[in-house]
């Protein structure tokens, strides 16, 4: 389809861009605090509304660069939900200075736009460009506290690792081009099915591409940047990068390996199993010894990525359903946990887990909510995290991957220890101070959305499951 005809497919992205430019321009004239947050919320809402109501029949657009199918639509919607919650968290986060607000929200809207493009790309070069856009804006956002040494260090580390990983990925893409004469994934797929190439060069190319994706998903051994970046970034941005780029990474992983390179996928399952078990185990074991809650959640998110890989490895419809469901649930519960951390650090001025002592007495509501998010991450019923883990386990057992299932079960027990350690501090230890700061309404709204999400999805998963099913039935 030509560019002119394709335009109507990307209205939601265009709306986001228009809003972001408007915010940046307005920022030159007015420094009114709070205005830009509301404007960007509006932008996201309009974009979501447009995505929901104006959805032409699925088609490859812009000469196959982008795909407009129900699979990408699901992730576009999820990206918008994530940004919506992150904006709410940011509005209640007092570290961002008033004069920086327009720039901050501009970047948030642009990165959302880039994510929406990345999840719908059907061409390796397009994937590369969109992912790079997501990465570059992430680096800036991580280093957003310009005068904070930790934030700067985090940004630099993230940048160095990131460029290396994307460079490697680009190198892999060049191999694919050399082999097939195109970077269009659907053409590559047809060639693979008819000719069945399975040689060393292809494996090398896929390995290199995988390295780039694994960096985004924070899989072991490409996880080194995670704890520092999470700790140094402003907490609202930590919430975002723990979810947003990860979604992109997993979507690309699913698209490349389970759709277009499906014929060679079985040969890779052993390799992925090793990565999966290493990711879960390393994430969980290192998380135990963390004393900073942001670092702890960073390692926990590494482990969570390992769980998601289980569904990916099975490659069955149930497995893919479990992956999509888990990503959805993970996004909500992780954002919720970071929203709580933002709220609490605002009041106690610390991210150290020890300083959470006795929080249940100082601020029972926040403590209760954080406890629920952590229990959901740990996979305790009837919270949404359990439902997600249940489906992943089910997928593993269905495919007779008993080893993976047992590894995941043991890991869940290990993970439980550090999640509950935080709960222990909040509920079992005595508080040092008892004052509570007034809480921001926006942040509380974000929390209410997330809490309602994990409770409702946990007890009544039907709507989300139907949504997931609809998006994978091509």
């Amino acid at each position: 389809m030509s560019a002119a005809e394709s335009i109507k497919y990307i209205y939601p992205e265009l709306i986001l861009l228009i809003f972001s430019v408007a915010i940046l321009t307005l920022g030159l004239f007015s420094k009114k605090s709070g205005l830009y947050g509301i404007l960007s919320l509006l932008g996201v809402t309009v974009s979501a509304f447009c995505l929901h109501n104006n959805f032409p029949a699925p088609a490859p657009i812009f000469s196959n660069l982008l795909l407009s199918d129900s699979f990408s639509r699901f992730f576009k919607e999820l990206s918008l939900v994530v940004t919506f919650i992150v904006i709410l968290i940011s509005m209640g986060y007092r570290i961002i200075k008033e004069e920086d607000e327009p720039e901050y929200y501009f970047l948030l809207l642009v990165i959302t736009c880039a994510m929406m493009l990345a999840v719908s790309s059907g061409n390796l070069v397009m994937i590369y460009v969109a992912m790079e856009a997501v990465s570059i804006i992430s680096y800036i956002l991580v280093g957003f506290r310009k005068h904070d040494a930790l934030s700067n260090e985090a940004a630099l580390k993230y940048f160095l690792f990131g460029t290396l990983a994307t460079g490697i990925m680009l190198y892999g893409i060049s191999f694919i081009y050399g082999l097939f004469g195109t970077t269009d994934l659907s053409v590559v797929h047809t060639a693979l099915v008819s000719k069945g190439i399975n040689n060393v060069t292809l494996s090398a190319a896929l390995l290199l591409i995988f390295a780039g994706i694994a960096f985004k998903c924070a899989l072991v051994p490409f996880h080194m940047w995670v704890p520092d970046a999470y700790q140094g970034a402003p907490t609202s941005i930590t919430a975002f990068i723990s979810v947003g780029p990860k979604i992109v990474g997993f979507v690309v992983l699913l698209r490349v390996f389970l759709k277009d390179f499906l014929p060679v996928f079985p040969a890779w399952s052993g390799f992925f199993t090793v990565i999966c078990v290493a990711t879960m185990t390393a994430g969980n074991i290192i998380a135990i010894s963390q004393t900073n809650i942001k670092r702890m959640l960073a390692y926990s998110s590494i482990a969570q990525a390992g769980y998601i890989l289980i569904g990916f490895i099975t490659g069955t419809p149930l497995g893919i359903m479990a992956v999509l469901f888990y990503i959805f649930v993970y996004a909500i519960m992780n954002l919720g946990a970071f929203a709580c951390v933002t709220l609490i650090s605002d009041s106690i001025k610390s991210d150290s887990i020890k300083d959470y002592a006795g929080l249940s007495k100082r601020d029972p509501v926040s403590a209760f909510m954080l406890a629920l998010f952590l229990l959901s991450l740990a996979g305790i019923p009837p919270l949404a995290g359990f439902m997600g883990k249940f489906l992943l386990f089910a997928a593993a057992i269905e495919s007779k991957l008993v080893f993976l299932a047992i590894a995941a079960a043991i890991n869940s027990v290990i993970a439980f220890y550090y999640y509950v350690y935080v709960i222990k501090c909040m509920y079992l230890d005595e508080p040092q101070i008892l004052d509570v700061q007034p809480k921001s309404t926006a942040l509380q709204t974000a929390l209410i959305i997330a809490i309602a999400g994990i409770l409702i999805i946990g007890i009544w998963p039907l709507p989300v499951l139907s949504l997931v099913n609809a998006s994978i039935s091509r």
Partner: protein
Amino acid sequence: MNFPILTYIISSTLLGAVLVLFVPKKNIFLIKTIATLATAIPLLLSVILLFRFNLSGADMQFQEKLAWIPQINVWYHLGADGISIGLIFLTALLGFLACIASYSINTREKEYFFFYLLLNVGMLGTFMALDLFLFYMFWEVVLVPMYFLIGIWGGPRKEYAAIKFFLYTLAGSLFMLLGILALYFTSTPHTFNMLELTQPAHALTLGLQILIFIALFLGFAIKVPIFPFHTWLPDAHVEAPTPVSVLLAGVLLKMGAYGFFRISFPILKEAAHYFVFPLAVLGVINIIYGAFVAMAQKDFKKMVAYSSVSHMGFVILGLASMTVIGFNGALLEMFNHGIITGGMFLLVGVLYERTHTRELDKFGGLGVKMPVYAGLLTVFSLASLGLPGLSGFVSEFLSLLGAYPVFKLITVISVLGMIITAAYFLYMLQRVLLGRLNEKWADIVDMNKLEIFIIVPLLLIMIVIGVYPLIALKYQASAINALMQKMGGMLF
């Protein structure tokens, strides 16, 4: 009449828990009232359940079935039969009595009663669920409140005990989850329905059955607890506050044994037959080992905790016998142990509240100062050691009787366990009640009316079942006969 009585039992407790959350934490009276009502209503309903129960029916009664997650064929499916009805009543009864015993909790009451009620929801649901998914959900719901109840209101080593309890049981239940999933995927069409899975059409190969049996065994054995998975139990019991100990011993341990009755045995018949001998051996180890360790304890509560390990051995032995009599004994022992040991823990709590110590050697001569207490403690101890005329004897005797034709040597060794049990209980009575009065306790007061009110119902049940066991056995007879027919065990 289509009155969803089981749902009402669960939801009245759940509603209570939610209501407690919205009461200001200063209004302790209202919190306690809500909690009492939220445990009294289920008790009342469960008594109605007992009366409306059809004794001759071997099938599931009071069934409720609603679609829940159709994509994976999960149903909200509840029901009760002769195997679960006694346990439902036991849970409701102990839930109510322990709630009254909780009045003495004087810190963070709001949180306490919230977690307490949530715990009750999980326990009641576990015994009612007929869908494996639902069963697992209720099973896990028990863990979190238990962690807090031990961790916040427990003794000096509460944090250690709470996390140990949680990690042990979580590890077990995750393996159980894998077993449940394996059952689901090996059935055609895929189902979580416990009743359907017992049908011969769903029979699996022996190898597969053995694997799944082991996975489920890990979950159930840790909960029972079966040696060598029992080490969490003494820690949890010693540190838990009295009402929680009552529920822990009275109900939580039964969840594991119930799992054998409801899931492992009827669904994995061949594997169950394959494993009877190891089970019987584990049973006798529980009996003898638990009894010896109990004898060596200096801490009153720890002694009772290990006596639980010993008593649960009779349940395992009865199960392993694969006879109708043995099954009857095992199931009745579950109920009786709940009543007797629940009472024992209440009595330990009474003493602890007055003296703030549980060291057996620090008491002495209390029989003179606390005659009512002395009387009750003696009766409960005698019931626990299996004196004829009290309920504990009936069920242990039936377990042994059922096991004897199958495992002669093991049964003979098990009987020795009863002698050791008698020894340590009598030794305990001697150290606490008899001998010279320790001057420290010169002005100790006897049990008050509330404490007596809590323990009398247990005492009555104990005596009634001891004298006329049929009153309890008639509830379980037809369900156990049906189970045995399915299992193809010995019908005598």
